C-alpha cells in the first residue's frame, strides 16, 4: 500500500504511450514475433503432440501442475470477490495492471481507441474497490450477493514470466429480489510474482457475451 497513488506520484497521472500496450495486445491475439522465437513455446507444442513420448512426460506433468496452479489462483481470486475482500483482491494486481471489460457490441475493441465498459488502471481500480466498500456506492449499498463461476480454464500462451489464460465465467448478482447474470470469457495475462511465488494480474479482462446490459442496467460489481 506504500505505492498507493497520490497526486504527487507522477506514475499515476494520465500519461502513457501506446507502446506500453502493444506487447499485451499481441499476446492476447497470439500474434507477434516473440512466439516463434521462444524455445519454451516450441517445447510446449511438441509436448502437446507427443504427450506420452519418452523425454516429454516431464513437460506434460509440468503442464498439468501449471494448469492446476492457475485454476487454484483463479478460484481463490474470485472467492475474494464473492467475500467482498476487495483490499486483499487489489493485492493481486501489479502496479501497472489493467482491468478491462469491452463494450458488448465490440468485444475485440482496442481500449486506446474504442469505448469500453471498464478500463481501469491501478488508480481507478483502487477507487473502484474503495468506493464499493462505502455507503456512497449506492448501487451496491446494501451490498449485493455475488457468486463467480469459473470454468474451462486454458493456458493459451506463455512468455518468460507471463502467462495468458482464458476461462469461461458466469457471475450471478442477487439483490432486492432480482438476479443479474453476466456471462463471458476471461482473457487474463498473469505474471509470476517474485516475492510470493504466486501470480498477479497484469491484465484482467472480462469479455461479456451479453447482447447488451439489459435488463441488468449496469455492471456495478467486479466481474
Amino acid at each position: 500500500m506504500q505505492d498507493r497513488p497520490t497526486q504527487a506520484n507522477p506514475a499515476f497521472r494520465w500519461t502513457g504511450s501506446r507502446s506500453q500496450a502493444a506487447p499485451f495486445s499481441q499476446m492476447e491475439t497470439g500474434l507477434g514475433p516473440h512466439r516463434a522465437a521462444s524455445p519454451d513455446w516450441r517445447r510446449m507444442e511438441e509436448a502437446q503432440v507427443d504427450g506420452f513420448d519418452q523425454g516429454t512426460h516431464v513437460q506434460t506433468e509440468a503442464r498439468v501442475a501449471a494448469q492446476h496452479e492457475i485454476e487454484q489462483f483463479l478460484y481463490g481470486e474470485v472467492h475474494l470477490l464473492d467475500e467482498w475482500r476487495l483490499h486483499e483482491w487489489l493485492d493481486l494486481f501489479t502496479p501497472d495492471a489493467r482491468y478491462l471489460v469491452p463494450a458488448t457490441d465490440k468485444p475485440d475493441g482496442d481500449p486506446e481507441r474504442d469505448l469500453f465498459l471498464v478500463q481501469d488502471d491501478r488508480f481507478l481500480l483502487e477507487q473502484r474497490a474503495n468506493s464499493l466498500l462505502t455507503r456512497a456506492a449506492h448501487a451496491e449499498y446494501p451490498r449485493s450477493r455475488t457468486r463467480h463461476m469459473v470454468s474451462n480454464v486454458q493456458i493459451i500462451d506463455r512468455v518468460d514470466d507471463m502467462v495468458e489464460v482464458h476461462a469461461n465465467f458466469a457471475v450471478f448478482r442477487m439483490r432486492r429480489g432480482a438476479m443479474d447474470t453476466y456471462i463471458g470469457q476471461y482473457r487474463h495475462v498473469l505474471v509470476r510474482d517474485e516475492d510470493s511465488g504466486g501470480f498477479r494480474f497484469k491484465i484482467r479482462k472480462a469479455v461479456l457475451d451479453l447482447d447488451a446490459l439489459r435488463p441488468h442496467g449496469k455492471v456495478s460489481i467486479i466481474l
Partner: protein
Amino acid sequence: MVRIHPVRTEIPGSRSALPIAELYLGIALRGAVALLCDEGDQALDVSETMNSLAEHGYESVAAAVASGQGDRTQVPEGELVQDTIVLVDHLGKRGWTPAQIGIIGYGLGGYAAFAAAVHGSFGAAVSVSPHAAASPVARALTDMAGRAASVRTPWLGLIGGPDNGQLRSAIRQLETALAASSPVYTEVVAYRAAIAPLYSHAPDSAAHAAAFDAWQRTTEWLNLRVAPRLTPLAKAWRARPSEQVTLVNQPGVDSLRKESEMSEYVNDDREMPRFRVNREVMVNPAVFARERELIFDKSWLYLGHETELRKPNDFKTRTVAGRPLIFARDAKGAIRVWVNSCPHRGAMLCREQQGNARFLTCFYHGWTFNSSGDMVSMPGDDSYGPNFERPNLGAPAKVDSYRGFVFVSFDPGIVDLPTYLAGAKEYLDLICDQSSVGMTVLEGTHEYSVKANWKLLVENSFDGYHAVSTHQRYFEMVMAARGKLDASALSESRGIDLGNGHGVIAGQPATEGLFGRPTSDAARAEKEERITQFRQLYGDKWVDRMRGARNLVIFPNLVVIDLVMGVVVRKIDPISPDYMEVTAWELVPPEEGEELHRQRLDNFLTFWGPGGLASPDDVEALETCQRSYAARREVQWSDISRGMYSHRASANDELQMRTFWRRWNRLITGEELPPEEQEPLDELYTAQRLADRGQQPASLG
C-alpha cells in the same frame, strides 16, 4: 491528502492551556466533531482525519487528551472528561448543541470518548482501540462493561489487535453487557489487525482493510445519529403558526389552488410557487399509450449519427419509437432510412446489427431490394400480373439531419427539423464546432436499461442538484486524482428553456475543471492550441461559451451532454411504463491527439458508462423511485419546484425539467402552461459565432 490546514491554537483547559487544532468550514455543514487523540497523534494524523471529516461536512476541533501531563499512567477519568467538555464547549461557541456534536477518540482518547458517552448525551460517540492510561485495551473494555447501564450517547467501539483470548473475552463481555443494559444503541466491532489511524500507510492489505472499514463505520455512525443543524428557513418553517399547517401529501387536502383548473398530471402553481407532477404518469399504461400516440408519433426522434455509416451501402439496424428501422447509406452514399420489414408479409428484412450490402434479400420468400429501397427482384414474378404494384421498402414519414445528427419522424405533417429544434440548434452547434473535420461517433456502444419510466432518465440527465449526493464516489475519485474540487462552480450556470420542450443547463467555463482526471502538460497545451485556432475561426465569445459544460435534452428523448472532457449522445427508448432501454455513444473530435482521445474515453466510461463510478448509482436511484410509485396514492406528487422562487434558475434548479413537463402536459392534456419568467441571460449564454463556420461537417460520401 491534506487540503485544508487546521489552525493550531490554545484554549483554557481543565488544568492548563490545552493545545487544539481547529478546522472550520464556511459552506454547508453536516455537524461538528470533537476529536480526542492520544498524545503524539496530533501532529501526525489528525490533519488528515479532520480533512476527511470536512469532506463529509463536519467541522472539527481536536486535542490530545491529558496533554501536558507528566505521567499519563495515572490520569483520572474526571480529567479526561473535563478535556472533552472543554472541546464541546468550544464548539458550543459556534452554535453547536450537544445533539449536533459527534465525539471520536483514539487510544486514551477513545477511553475519554466512552467516558463522555456516559457523562453526557451527545449525537454520537466512537472509540477506536480505547485503553485507559497505561493499561491494555482488555482492561479498559472490562471496565467499560461495568458501566454499560450508564451510557447515554450511542457509542461505537472499534477494537483492533491480535486475536488473543483475553481480548476476545473482554470484547464479548462488553458486547453482552451493552446489549443487556445500555439504554441507547451501541455496537462493538473487532478487527484482527491493529487499526492504524486514518490514512497512515498501513503495512499490509489486511491492516489497510481494517483502517478503511473502521473509518467507513465511523462516518456512517455519525451520519446516522448526529443531528443536522436547521437552516434559518427550516427554523422559520417549524415556527409558523399551527393553523397554517397543511398536510402536504394528504390526498384530498391540497393547497389553495383550484384543482379543476389544473391538469390532473401537472400542477403548476406560480403563486406559492410550486410545480408538481403526479406520479400516476410514471406507471399508468393508458398514459404510456397516449405518450406513444401523441408524443412519439408526433416528434422528431433521434436515429443515429451520420459518422456511424462510413461507406456507401453501410447499414445499421435499430429501433425508434418501437419501429425496427434500417439506418443506411445508399449506393451513392446518401443517408436513407427504411422500415425493417419486408413489404410482402412482414418478415424482418435485415437481421444483422450492422454490415454493408447493396442488396438485401428477405430470407422468407426471397424478395430482394436495393439500398435505395427499390424492389429489384422476386422469385417467380410471372405469377403476378403486369399491373401488380411492386412494393418498395417502407420508410418513416420524414428523415432529416442536423450537423450529422439524423432524426426521423412518423408524422407527415410535422414542421421541418431546424424549426423543431428551435433554441437547441445553437447548443448542437456549440458541440459540433469543437471539430474542424466533424465530430465522430466512436465504436463501442453502451447499451443498457433501467427498470423505470423513461421520463425519470430525462429528468436525471439535466439534474445538477443530484450530482454531489448521488455521485459522491465519483467526485471522491476526481478529488483524489486532482487534489481538489471546487463544487461551488456548479452554481455558475443557468437552466434555459429552448422552446418546443427542449431544455439545457449550461455552465460557464469554470465548470470545465469539475469532471474527469487531469491531463498532462502536453495534452493541455494541445487543447489550448486548438482553442486558439477556434478563437480565430469563431470569435472569443463563442469559444468562451464552448468551454462551459452543457446538458441538453431535445424533446422528447434525446440527451446530449457535453462536459468538455467528453460528449455523450444518449437515446432513451420507452419499452413499458416501468422499463426503458438506453443507448449511449461517445462523440469526439477525431483530429485530437492520442492522449486527449484516451482521456475522453476514460472520462466517458468512468462517469457516464454503466460500468463506471456514476451511472450505476443513477440507475439505482431511478429504479428505487419507480418501485416506490406503487404507493402513489399515498404520496401522490413529485416536486419539481427548485428555482421557481428566484427567477434565475441555475443547473442545481429545475427549470429545465419544468420546460420538459410543460411541453409534455401540452401534448398529453392540451393544457397550455406559459413559460416561466426568467432574468435575462447574460452574454455568456447568448453570444453568437463570429462568422459562418469555416468548414461544412463531413457528411455524405
